[in-house]
């Protein structure tokens, strides 16, 4: 396992350097001078102008510039953003990245879990009427034109029913006399969600060993209630009580984007699980399990679903990257100030340093997701480990 991890890690490092080089060359290939908008920008004082030229080595040949860019990437130095002048790209990214990560890690986890659940049931009920309808629904949400769908959701839930706010991160009126900055509150929220989901995961892991399905469900329900109780205590005591009002405001703005993306993202997993489950159900060992007299649910959950999980995990690698991609759309439609919105803004306004920085960071994010998924895949499927070690 360790050798595999190390091998993958080195491969990833090479891929990462290639990515950096390609992304630099891409920006370099912009006709004329990629930085020419710098000359026309009246917001930039001469020092910033000088600094940008030095940071990117604009007076040097290509190879040296490339070298400088890679060194600067690790130093986190991208010069200044043109549109947000005194701020640096890294500063902007460190503000925006947590928001994107929070939104999309929740979506990823929920979509993967529900997708797997739905796909499992679809394959099991093959031929029934409910299967046809759910399949049609999943195909619709898999292929639906996402911006259109998001706008319709926004119209229906945000405007017509008026249940949720029309995009944005918070309601400014509520924050006028706030003792905390929105980032501070948001970090608390992130910490809380991380701890809560970790505990939830622990509950699932611990109860996995319980043999009787009925007992297991009860144990999980009990764990959930306990966790809810603990979080209620957390939010009514100490500093968290003061932050509660503001945290609720942010959380309220998160509901509709999360729901919309989940609705679109779960379908891919569900459809794939359905296919792999159907393949697995043809296998002999399923017949054996049935012949042994095991209950239907047991055959489905313990024997078929576990084998069917593997290809789904592989596809999950791809899904993560598509979801990062999709963040651009989600964020621009719901006005969620995250990475996706930042890159769109930077590209449209030709803010080259910012566009470079965000593009590289999204790439790194995708790379890390890819790496984690690869490792967990090898962990789940021993065949891959053994093949790579021999």
């Amino acid at each position, binding site marked *: 396992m360790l050798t595999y991890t190390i091998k993958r890690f080195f491969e990833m490092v090479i891929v990462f350097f290639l990515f950096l080089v390609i992304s630099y060359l891409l920006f370099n290939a*912009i*006709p004329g001078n990629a930085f020419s908008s710098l000359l026309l920008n009246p917001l930039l004082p001469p020092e910033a102008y000088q600094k940008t030229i030095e940071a990117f080595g604009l007076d040097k040949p290509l190879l040296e510039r490339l070298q400088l860019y890679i060194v600067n990437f690790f130093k986190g130095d991208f010069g200044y953003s043109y549109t947000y002048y005194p701020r640096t790209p890294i500063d902007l990214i460190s503000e925006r990245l947590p928001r994107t990560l929070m939104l999309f890690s929740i979506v990823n986890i929920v979509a993967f879990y529900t997708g797997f659940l739905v796909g499992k049931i679809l394959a099991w009920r093959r031929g029934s009427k409910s299967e046809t309808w759910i399949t049609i629904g999943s195909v619709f949400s898999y292929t639906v034109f996402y911006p259109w769908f998001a706008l319709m959701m926004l119209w229906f839930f945000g405007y017509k029913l008026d249940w949720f706010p029309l995009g944005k991160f918070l309601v400014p009126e509520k924050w006028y006399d706030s003792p905390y900055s929105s980032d501070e509150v948001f970090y608390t929220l992130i910490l809380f969600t991380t701890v809560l989901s970790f505990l939830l995961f622990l509950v699932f892991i611990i109860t996995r060993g319980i043999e009787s399905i009925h007992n297991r469900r009860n144990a999980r329900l009990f764990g959930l209630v306990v966790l809810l109780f603990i979080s209620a205590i957390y939010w009514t005591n100490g500093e968290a009580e003061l932050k509660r009002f503001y945290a609720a405001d942010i959380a309220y703005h998160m509901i509709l984007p999360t729901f919309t993306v989940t609705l679109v993202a779960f379908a891919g997993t569900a459809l794939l699980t359905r296919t792999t489950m159907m393949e697995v159900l043809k296998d002999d060992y399923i017949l054996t399990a049935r012949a042994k007299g095991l209950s239907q649910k047991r055959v489905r959950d313990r024997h078929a679903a576990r084998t069917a999980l593997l290809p789904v995990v592989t596809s999950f690698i791809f899904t993560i990257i598509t979801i990062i991609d999709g963040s651009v759309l989600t964020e621009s439609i719901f006005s969620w100030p995250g990475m996706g919105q930042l890159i769109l803004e930077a590209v449209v306004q030709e803010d080259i340093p910012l566009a470079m920085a965000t593009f590289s960071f999204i790439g790194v994010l995708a790379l890390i997701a890819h790496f984690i998924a690869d490792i967990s895949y090898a962990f789940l499927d021993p065949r891959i480990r053994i093949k790579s070690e021999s």
Partner: protein
Amino acid sequence: MENQELENGLKAKFKKNWRLFKQSKLGMTGLTIVIFFGFLAILQPLLFLTNIWDEGTYHPVVGYDSEQISRTVVECPDEYPTEKYNTKEDCPRVDEVNIRYLKAFGIDAEVGDSYLSNVQPAPPSSRHLLGTDSLGRDIFSQLMEGSQVAFLLGLISAIIGVGISTLLGTAAAFYGGKLDTYLMRQSDLVLMLPSLPFLFIISAFAELKVWHLAVVLGTLGGLGGSVITIKSQALQVKVKPFVDSARITGGSKRRIMFSHILPNVAPLALLYMVFSVTGAIASESVLSFLGLLNIDMSWGIMIYLSQTEGFIFTGLKYWWLIIPAGLAVTLLAGGFYLVGRGLDDVFNPRLRRR
């Protein structure tokens, strides 16, 4: 003689596969949808050529038609909800006009009169099946233009993508070694490339036309994940006895690769081609929705216009501006996806019911 036998064999195979495909309901539904949009795409130039449609009126980009519509004059109440209207946005309805509005322009009318005027966007009528947009252009014609764009883009990018990935995948499986390692790392790199931001950046400095985008999408798709899948399929074919016998009888490497391995990988490649059309159509619509493509008209632009002009939040009052374009993207992408599913049932025996 031999040729004819081969032909007969192919025909029989095709017939068998078609029979299998027909059994899958989803696949047939998808095929119907695709054929329907293909029909729409072909119909528009025909209508222009035969002069049934006048280009000045029906052209999707520069056409204009002012339609006289008679609307009832009503007086909008001050307080809502009333019996007739729920919210402020409901009054006046599409076929009504507010009397205060007329008075502001100094037009004499009374409540209950019918008032004849030009309206844009005009609701669906026998002249314009799906109404017109706010510039008086025919929505149905725009829809047809959009399906031309979608087909052009989807097919070009799918053919390029599948060509590249089949060639590279089989080469990686057949030659192995360094070439294999290189190609696999390369597809890793392409896979991790965030494709939408990447396309944004390209569109920031290059004037992207439809076929440029098709080439870019095809290349990206062809170098990405499909190489890995096709390679694994080719690896399975490579160890089959007939490849060995071809080698023993003295077939050159190139011949074995092109006439023995490639045909056996082709079904999977076809499957990939159909699935990649879905992605290409979605990417095009997204880019033109964000206004980053240099084309006149497409489904994405139709939605972009209805959003920027503020019709999206009027709900269903101006449904012909919002629903057709979005539904068309969804349906065509879904149609290709379903065809792919049907083909999957044909080529992958393990998925069949019995």
